[in-house]
């Protein structure tokens, strides 16, 4: 399916502006392990106090990418591990037979950030939460394209967020992770706009290991370059993303 990307907002690895990401795609900037979190001044302090670093990254990108349609846009929130720092703290508390924090418990489910977005904006449009292993980023786009096509929506917001997993889980993750969120506002392509096409095939090569690079970085590297296509192979899929100008 063809689509266009109306907005792209990403914050991660110390890179926070479109200019930063352009420099990254040109090889002039690299990712850092440490970064400041978005201030999110638009959210009142009494609501902001409950936002984890994961939620702050996600909401900053979502609110800025969907600036014109905050109260109406349907959305797909995607993350491979979710807010695992929060979840693993709860699991430790269960193991230690401590009483669980009701706030932490309520905000630890996979679609909690989507819920926070919905509460803050008053947006009651359909919202899904996606987790699909190393293919999470592109799978979220597929889900959004299905929504655009099946429901004839004018636009769909995709919000991908990942934070580095807690130390106890790090041996199980092959990818080099950074704390990052990326929000895309997708629309059916109109005249004179850039048309993107995303396709996938099964990877029959029996690839043994996951990619070391996160898909979201493959995407940002492509989006901010002058290239016309990018191929990303995962253990299970061969993804191809192309762009051309609609004449």
């Amino acid at each position, binding site marked *: 399916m063809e689509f266009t990307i109306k907005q792209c907002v990403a914050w991660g690895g110390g890179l926070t502006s479109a200019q930063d990401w352009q420099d990254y795609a040109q090889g002039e900037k690299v990712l850092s392990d440490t970064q400041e979190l978005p201030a999110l001044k638009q959210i009142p*302090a*009494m609501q902001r*106090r*409950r936002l984890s670093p994961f939620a702050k990254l996600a909401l900053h990108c979502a609110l800025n990418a969907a600036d014109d349609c905050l109260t109406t846009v349907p959305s797909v929130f995607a993350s491979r591990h979710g807010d695992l720092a929060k979840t693993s703290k709860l699991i430790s508390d269960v193991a230690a037979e401590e*009483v*669980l*924090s*009701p*706030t932490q418990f*309520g905000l630890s489910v996979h679609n909690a950030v989507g819920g926070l977005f919905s509460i803050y904006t008053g947006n009651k449009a359909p919202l899904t939460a996606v987790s699909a292993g190393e293919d999470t980023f592109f799978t979220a786009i597929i889900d959004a394209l299905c929504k655009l096509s099946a429901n004839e929506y004018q636009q769909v917001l995709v919000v991908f967020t990942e934070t580095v997993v807690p130390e106890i889980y790090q041996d199980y993750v092959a990818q080099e992770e950074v704390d990052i969120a990326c929000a895309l506002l997708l629309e059916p392509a109109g005249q004179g706009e850039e048309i993107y096409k995303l396709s996938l095939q099964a990877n029959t090569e029996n690839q043994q290991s996951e990619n070391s690079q996160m898909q979201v970085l493959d995407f940002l590297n492509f989006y901010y370059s002058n290239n016309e296509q990018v191929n990303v192979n995962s253990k299970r899929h061969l993804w191809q993303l192309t762009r051309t100008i609609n004449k």
Partner: protein
Amino acid sequence: MNDLIDEVKQLIIDTLDLEDIEPADIDYEDALFVDGLGLDSIDALELGVAIKKAFDVKIDNNSDDSKKHFYSVKTLCEFIAASRN
């Protein structure tokens, strides 16, 4: 009692992540929820757990009595002091 008041105020700030609020900003008799300090129902649950942990007192969820106990710092302190005796 003054020690207890300070302890309860600090517990409220720490438990509920009230970043910009000092103990002196929390009035002794004002409402903690909705109109006063502006706390909400999730805060009430959270505070209940924290008070149970810190002072080893038993709180009945949703009873009219607990609503009275959680009205202000004053009522909370009186409740804790009475439960300890």
